[in-house]
């Protein structure tokens, strides 16, 4: 199986801080790769460097066979990489509809695609004409995922989509991600909720101190409490 994304020896500095110190990571096509690790180890920075928000100091990022390390962010997005940031990334002054239309840079989403979005996130249909800033936290997160679904993407970079959400909304969110996976999308997902990670992930990569310290099948990590304890300082059983 080919890799849709291959990161090799990636170093990223933010101001005077060395955040990524040689990340090597592969995201297989059509599968969900979980990027796990303690807080502050460089997971978000990895996603943002792939998206071009932070410039790579060294190393390479290959997407769909092309070296995109020096590409500007809009070019990466137009090439098919969708990004859902940790802070939801919605435009609060615009309506839900405007957010969705804006998210599809190649043209407004068609009716069939919108129906899929509404099926995954019914509240978005109810608040279609409302300003996104007036939505609840969970609805905002739904919109942020829905925006990524507004257009066909090859690779999704999703940063902690269930953070701070109520259990019922976490389950809705997991359902939507499962559907995205079912459509054959490749996903690199940063997730702190182990139950969600276990349910969705095909592969896992664990980060520590700006590097990938372990890669393997998600099922293997999920089954080994000792490995979890050693890599991340906690176990799913404790979760």
């Amino acid at each position: 199986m080919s890799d849709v994304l291959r990161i090799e020896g990636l170093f990223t500095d933010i101001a005077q801080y060395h955040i990524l110190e040689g990340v090597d990571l592969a995201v297989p096509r059509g599968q969900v790769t979980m990027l796990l690790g303690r807080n502050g180890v460089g997971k978000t920075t990895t996603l943002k460097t792939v998206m071009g928000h932070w410039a790579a100091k060294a190393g390479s990022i290959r997407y769909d066979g092309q070296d995109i390390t020096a590409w500007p962010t809009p070019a990466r997005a137009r090439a098919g990489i969708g990004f859902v940031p940790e802070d939801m990334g919605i435009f609060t002054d615009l309506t839900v509809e405007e957010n969705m239309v804006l998210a599809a840079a190649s043209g407004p989403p068609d009716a069939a695609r919108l129906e899929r979005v509404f099926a995954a996130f019914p509240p978005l249909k109810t608040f279609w004409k409302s300003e996104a800033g007036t939505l609840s936290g969970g609805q905002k997160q739904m919109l942020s995922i829905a925006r990524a679904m507004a257009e066909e993407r090859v690779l999704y970079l999703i940063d902690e989509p269930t953070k701070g959400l109520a259990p019922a909304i976490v389950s809705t969110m997991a359902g939507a991600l499962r559907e995205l996976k079912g459509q054959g999308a490749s996903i690199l997902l940063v997730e702190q909720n182990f139950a969600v990670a276990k349910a969705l992930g095909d592969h896992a990569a664990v980060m520590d101190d700006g590097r990938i310290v372990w890669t393997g099948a998600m099922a293997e990590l999920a089954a080994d409490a000792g490995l979890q304890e050693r890599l991340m300082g906690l176990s799913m059983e404790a979760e």
Partner: protein
Amino acid sequence: MLVNLISGDTPRSAVLTVLLLIVLVCLAGAPFLFPGVRSLETAATICIFILLVASYDLLLGYTGIVSFAHTMFFGLGAYGVALASIHIGRGWGALIVGSLSGAVAAAALALIIGLFSLRVRAIFFAMITLAVASAVAVLVSQLFNITGGEDGLTYLIPRELTPAFRMGELFGVRVNGRVLNYYLIFVACLALFLLLLRIVNSPFGRVLQAIRENDFRAEAIGYRVVWYRTAATCLSAAIAALAGALYAIWLRYVGPDTTLSFEIMLDILLMVVIGGMGTMYGAVLGAVIFVLAQNYLQNLMGVAAEATEALPILPLFLDPNRWLLWLGLLFILSVYFFPTGIVGRLRSGR
């Protein structure tokens, strides 16, 4: 149809709707509702400043770009009309050529400034626009052979737009070329204002708003932020230049003080803030309140001082010579009580 005309951007507040209708009716009927040279002068200035402030709001309110070069673009349009009228000669052709050349020159200059500086942080862009605007103001002063220097330029406009062109009476008011001139300005400003409403409510306008809120998010969707910012700067500059051209047609005089001064830039900023940023209707209310205060506050204070002359101390504060103090106080209070501008406050309904 009316909703379509305003690009679906309804006022979303009953009070705001009433206020806007009052402004529209007063400006549309100004020559007949408020006959007199001074009131017509005020009405024309309001029309032009509504357009100028709205064009600035496209930058500041909708795109989040702080520029100090807006009066420079305003001046380019005004000097375009003046120079064309002098060199081509009195006529409609000179007005059209002057206005269009001013707008094209403004857009070209904005493109150059934008491409060089919109990639950098907002504060640097603001500083660069300040430097360029100051340099142009000095240049206009120095090149007196072309621009008339500090004295400015006077020129002739088509006779049909001057008081000498008489057309008889209507509703008891003598209609002459000055009234025609006013309606030329009113219609042009209204059309350009509606165009701005169309722009900000188009997909292009939505991208600008997205960029204002978070430029990285907009880039992460696939929009080239620098391209959109530059396009907004060029559009805003071209419309400011057309406002300047209309001002030059109205005044039949251009000079650094009337079109290029930094004081006008500060006035524009205040009008945007008072009216409410990121809403075209804010430009309407901001310009109306500011221009009326500039023109009539002194008179109002004179009346108030006379009425209170029997009282101690108060007439001293209400002395017409202290009008700037009250104007300043009015602005402080309006910013304090309406932090989102008058339109923002009215729309929030609180």
